[in-house]
């Protein structure tokens, strides 16, 4: 039938094609961000022109700032809430942690609408606060599994040894438990930030008319039409995401090795 050599490598070939499928559009996007001319989509030489244009747009900076503040706050909030929750849920009779796994499962749009309704009912102004609240809900869904996995790995004896040596609960928490959790905390923090930056639907519904996040800005740019400036912005976002992903995985692996 199929020659043996081909059959052996069929799987590898397929995986290669799959990865190409995942990356070719991105690749094309990046390449065209350096395209000198405007469209049609023909290569007209290398240029950083669009990047210059990008940096001159003031709104982008503001949008980025907003996204950053929201992301950072959501991240910190998620981490704090999660850590306290984990500590409390350790011996809790009911599986309260499983409750949070739904946050990722439901369609974003339902949550977004719900939050909008909630805010409207309580006359909470849409904007920064609303965004932070919403993103924290999402963040909890991502942070808790990561933190829980690491938390479960912790030997109870570590905590007991600390008490045995005379430490108080809080001391133990901050000087034993938290350091142990560093790699997971770092990964979760970064992940929540990425999720917050990438979030569109919740922001779309809850940002209101005055606030704009980076995602919303990109969305409006895309709606306006294809433009190399968007390519440039996208390339930058791509680059940052890749670096963050790399940092997360690297840190996770080496951090785990150190602690174990």
């Amino acid at each position, binding site marked *: 039938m199929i020659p043996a050599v081909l059959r052996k490598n069929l799987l*590898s070939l397929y995986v290669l094609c799959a990865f190409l499928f995942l990356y070719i559009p991105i690749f094309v996007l990046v390449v065209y961000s350096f395209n000198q001319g405007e469209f049609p*989509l023909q290569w007209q030489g290398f240029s950083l022109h669009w990047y210059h244009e990008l940096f001159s747009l003031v709104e982008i900076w503001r949008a980025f700032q907003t996204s950053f503040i929201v992301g950072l706050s959501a991240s910190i909030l998620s981490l704090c809430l999660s850590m306290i929750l984990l500590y409390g*849920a350790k011996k809790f009779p009911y599986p309260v942690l499983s409750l949070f796994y739904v946050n990722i499962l439901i369609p974003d749009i339902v*949550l977004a609408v*719900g939050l909008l*309704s909630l805010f409207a009912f309580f006359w909470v102004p849409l904007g920064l606060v609303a965004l932070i609240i919403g993103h924290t809900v999402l963040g909890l869904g991502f942070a808790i599994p990561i933190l829980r996995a690491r938390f479960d790995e912790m030997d109870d004896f570590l905590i007991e040894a600390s008490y045995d040596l005379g430490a108080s609960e809080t001391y133990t928490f901050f000087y034993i438990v938290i350091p142990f959790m560093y790699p997971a905390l770092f990964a979760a923090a970064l992940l929540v930030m990425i999720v917050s930056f990438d979030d*569109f639907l919740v922001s779309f519904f809850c940002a209101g008319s005055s606030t704009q996040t980076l995602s919303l800005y990109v969305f409006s740019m895309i709606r306006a039409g294809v433009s190399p400036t968007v390519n440039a912005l996208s390339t930058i976002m791509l680059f940052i995401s890749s670096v963050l992903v790399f940092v997360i995985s690297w840190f996770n692996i080496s951090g785990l090795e150190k602690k174990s």
Partner: protein
Amino acid sequence: MSAIKKLFLSEKYYFLVLPALSWQVLFFLIPLLFVGLMACFEHTSEQLFAYPTLENFRLVCTAPHFAIIFRSLWLAMSTALFALFAAYPIAYFLAFKVDRFRFFLLFLLAIPFLVNILVQVYAWFFVLDKQGMLSQAFMFIGLSKQPINFLDTLFGVRVVMLHIYLPFLVMPIFTALEKIDYRLVEASLDLGASFFATFTRVLMPLSMPGIKNGFFLVLVTSFGEYIIPILLGGNKVFFVGTIISEYFFIGKDWGKGTAFICISCLVLVIAVLIWNFIFNAVTMRSKRFVS
């Protein structure tokens, strides 16, 4: 002070679950509740909940609405299935066929996962556009003499959905497969099973939790997809996500909007239950493969 100290020193830290739990209740459960409630009320410009009514549901349970719901469901199911069949070999490859490159490949897989979906959809513009790569490729091969615009087509939407949701499925299946001892595969082959038989009788039942996780994640998330249809589908075809946003922002009819969400979610839940049943049946069948 002593009461708090007592709490701290006591064995039970149960009260610590309160912050996160209250956050969840307040900002997750209650919003969902609101969605359900709002669907049952008529709204005025002052009050959100003026008086109860089922009018919203009546307005929403019409044929065109259901057509949209089922179209979205069909799209979601086909995306999930395509992605499932596409992802499984990749997960298999990662779990069993590589060792040294695994970190690198997982890293490559994680990037599309975490890159902004807007960026990825935008990237596809360049491929699907009339003068984009795919069109040029078609002309190059000879399948078409004129440039084709894939942008406003359902085909384009499907391709991009697959692109976005493929990594969603690879990870859970990979996690499940990793736990399987490869010697089980070897034992099955050793006893005379073809590769297909090994898959249906050994790999699939053992990786079913991962398959289900990934499938339902994609099914549910892609059902409410808004970005892809609105950016790629043009204004020709409507999906659940686009209709909902239209009701909320353009029509300002929150009652209808939430009612529509409720009905859509109901259909989704039924679909999930049906698929769960299907998966369980397939697993049962594979175990006792009586000829």
